[in-house]
């Protein structure tokens, strides 16, 4: 049923401290190599370029000396009630696995782009071109993520393959793969953030750091009033940044 939040015993979540983000773009670069996003032929064309993780620049629109800026990294928000899933006519995207990561199966996708239109966070990208790696750069290809052909939609998967790897490592070490230690599974962007602005873990597991972080009075989610119940939280001690997280009326 649409309009109902899906609950799972594990809820993988990301907490992004906007005040710590310097806008360096290491998350974007590491995401691109980790997930076999092809080198963009024209990255300045935002209607055609693909970037699973994207850093936005925010400004408070005030003149000096009150001018202030902030950077907002935006992965897939992994909604608890994903608008993209309910519109997919072929079940190429679904939220049905423990952990709550919204899946995307490329061979099943027919490229209708309903999900692109439905996503309020613009996290979904359509492949406009055949992916081409210039000679030599094909050595950066990772076997852990499949390459998408032209004509299908792709998006951030919270580096799902890293979870399966972490579970395998736990199995071999004789640990419980369903109860991973904090830090056993982190996404590529979280691992590579030099300023420590990103944190990742199971929001429902009290042993994980993010469990506490989401309770911060400065924590908020993007477009919360849509009822998407996202699994990505943002933290900012600046009120104007928090206000940009949703569409507020002047009177609010």
């Amino acid at each position, binding site marked *: 049923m649409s309009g109902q939040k899906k609950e799972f015993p594990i809820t993988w979540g990301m907490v992004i401290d906007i005040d710590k983000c310097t806008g360096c773009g290491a998350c974007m670069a590491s995401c691109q190599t980790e997930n076999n996003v092809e080198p963009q032929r024209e990255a300045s064309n935002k209607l055609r370029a693909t970037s699973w993780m994207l850093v936005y620049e925010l400004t408070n629109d005030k003149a000096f000396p009150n001018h202030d800026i902030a950077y907002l990294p935006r992965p897939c928000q992994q909604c608890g009630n994903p608008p993209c899933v309910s519109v997919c006519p072929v079940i190429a995207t*679904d939220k*049905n*696995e*423990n952990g709550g*990561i919204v*899946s995307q*199966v*490329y*061979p099943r996708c027919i490229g209708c782009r309903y999900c692109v239109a439905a996503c309020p966070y613009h996290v979904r990208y359509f492949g406009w071109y055949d992916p081409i790696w210039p000679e030599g750069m094909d050595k950066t290809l990772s076997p*852990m*993520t*499949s*390459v998408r052909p032209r004509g299908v939609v792709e998006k951030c*998967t919270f580096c*799902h*393959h890293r979870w*399966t*790897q972490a*579970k*395998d*490592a*736990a*199995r*071999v*070490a004789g640990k419980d*793969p369903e109860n991973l230690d904090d830090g056993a599974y982190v996404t590529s962007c979280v691992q590579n953030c030099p300023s420590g602005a990103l944190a990742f873990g199971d929001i429902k597991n009290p042993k994980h750091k993010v469990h506490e972080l989401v309770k911060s009075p400065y924590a908020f989610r993007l477009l919360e009033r849509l009822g998407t119940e996202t699994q990505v939280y943002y933290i900012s001690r600046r009120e104007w940044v928090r206000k940009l997280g949703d569409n507020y009326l002047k009177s609010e």
Partner: protein
Amino acid sequence: MEEKRSNSAGGVGGMALFALIGFVGALVVGWGIFPKMLYSQKTQPIRFSHTVHSQLGIECEQCHHLGPDGRFAGLPSTESCAECHGEETGDTSANGKEIDKFVKDYVKTGRQVPWLVYQYQPDNVFFSHAAHKGFECTKCHLDVAKTDTPPPYYENRLSGYSKDTMKMWECERCHASMGTSNACFVCHK
């Protein structure tokens, strides 16, 4: 009228005959000719005898093992084979010649053997050997330990996949019967 009736009576027998010929022909095409057309047959680059090695007391896990991080190591490298087969034997028996071929073509040149893996899965599938450790290998794999000559490898001419690659419905059926999730990302990447 009379003539017509006798004609139609003979027609029924003739029709049955033609139907039978057509039926048998369809069976021959469907069971014999079409599968041969669909799959091309390939042989392994080296006639590796699993029987000889298992009779020497080598366990499967000695060559096909899980890494310390839980990843499946897959097939042994030329280097690990060369620990035993480092030099040409000069043996003129069939097995000896095959060993010499391996040493000459791969150990001396430092190349890896392009083994054909019967169960190779498509690019977008993640299979965890660590998660399936409780099962017998032969539940999914050919029982190669009993083969002196590796069985032929059948490649689907359209998809390029092996005929023995496990199909998605087989994975799903076992997952359903074991009570394991069949969510997309459990196996897909």
